[in-house]
């Protein structure tokens, strides 16, 4: 039951970055725009308006203990129409960040932890990675049109740094070749890092800013050490 609000040292309502509208969540009109636009409203008790209201009441523990922050796709459709420009997505992301790391559901935090240790969300050793990539590249080179195709790992002074989504390396190898075909025809001078090749940043999902900083830092290091000219943003 709601009562007069409690005292809280670092409430989510002030901790969540005020983007996109630079408006405090207190500005909420409780008008229902967000909830009416969210396809998830009503599913398992999900309701963005309720989330904002509970955060305003500093009842974030109820949310942190629930699955609700993890049901949200952070798609921002609610914010898009919010007449007050309230930072609903960042509120949810901040809530996710307050969840104890061992309570983060599914593979998200596991991936983040593996990435921190190994440089990719799968925890794949460099030799295995190199083997998979080389294998798929050789398969492509077997096709007549792409006969001389080769992958250059860690090539200094390459034009373009190409990172990879772990799912392509893991289960969907067949989708690795689309870009390679394009690069090949375009005559692109690209390179793939042998280590720290992960192009996906799950810290974004888990609310883990420190993990995000680490991943970004690794890419910067590649660019600096190999003196590569351009970074292709991860897909």
């Amino acid at each position, binding site marked *: 039951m709601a009562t007069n609000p409690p005292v809280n040292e670092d409430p989510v309502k002030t901790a969540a970055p005020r*983007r*996109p509208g630079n408006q405090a969540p207190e500005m909420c009109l409780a008008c229902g725009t967000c909830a009416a636009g969210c*396809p*998830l409203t009503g*599913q*398992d008790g*999900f309701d963005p308006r309720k989330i904002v209201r509970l955060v305003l009441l500093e009842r974030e523990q109820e949310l942190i203990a629930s*699955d609700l922050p*993890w*049901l*949200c*796709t*952070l*798609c*921002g*459709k609610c*914010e*898009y*129409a919010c007449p007050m420009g309230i930072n609903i*997505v960042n509120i*949810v992301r901040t809530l996710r960040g307050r969840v104890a790391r061992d309570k983060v*559901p*599914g*593979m*998200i935090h596991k*991936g983040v932890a593996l990435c921190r240790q190994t440089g990719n969300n799968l925890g794949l050793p460099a030799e295995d990675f190199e083997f998979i990539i080389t294998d798929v590249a050789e398969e492509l080179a077997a096709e*007549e*049109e*792409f006969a001389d195709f080769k992958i250059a790992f860690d090539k200094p002074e390459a034009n*373009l740094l190409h990172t990879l*989504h772990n*799912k*392509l390396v893991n289960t969907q190898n067949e*989708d690795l*070749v*689309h*870009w390679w*075909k*394009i690069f090949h*025809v*375009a*005559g*692109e001078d690209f390179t793939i890092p042998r280590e720290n090749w992960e192009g*996906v940043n*799950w810290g*974004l*999902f*888990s609310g883990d800013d420190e993990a995000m*900083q680490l991943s*970004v*830092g690794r890419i*910067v290091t590649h*660019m600096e050490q190999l003196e*590569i*000219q*351009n*970074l*292709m*943003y991860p*897909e």
Partner: protein
Amino acid sequence: MQQWYPDFFDRFGTLTVFDLLEDYLASGRIKVDKTAHPQRALYHDPCNYGRKSRELFGRGYFDQPRRVMDQCLAEWTDSQPSRGNQYCCGGGGGTLLTPFKAPRIHYGRRKIDQIKQARAELVVVPCHSCHGQIKALLAAYEVKGVEVKYLWEVVADALIVES
């Protein structure tokens, strides 16, 4: 990147997938053939490249992929709504990595409705999460005869390779 390495953009060039594809096509480094894709296609705006990119960086990638589509597909259409007010596929925010499959599939009913409404045979996406989620949705809602392709896959499949 802006937050942690503010000088990065001065030292290195950065290219999005859209920049690369458009550049290759515009400069003639690659050539494509529309007839490679005779199906009726539907383009899906990923939240991160569209709505959220516009909110965070002031630039939404709405027109670039559409220009690429124009060159690689015989017939394609937009969903309603699209662009800034697009429905997320339901696989964003890492939800694909969580065990909460039922709500994710429930969320995706809007996307399935749009695919059906457009009578699409091919859904084109420039995002790995959307790709995975839309495939899962088509299976869950038992929608047959709809293919899902990456935007760059569409380009790769439409490449004119001079051997």
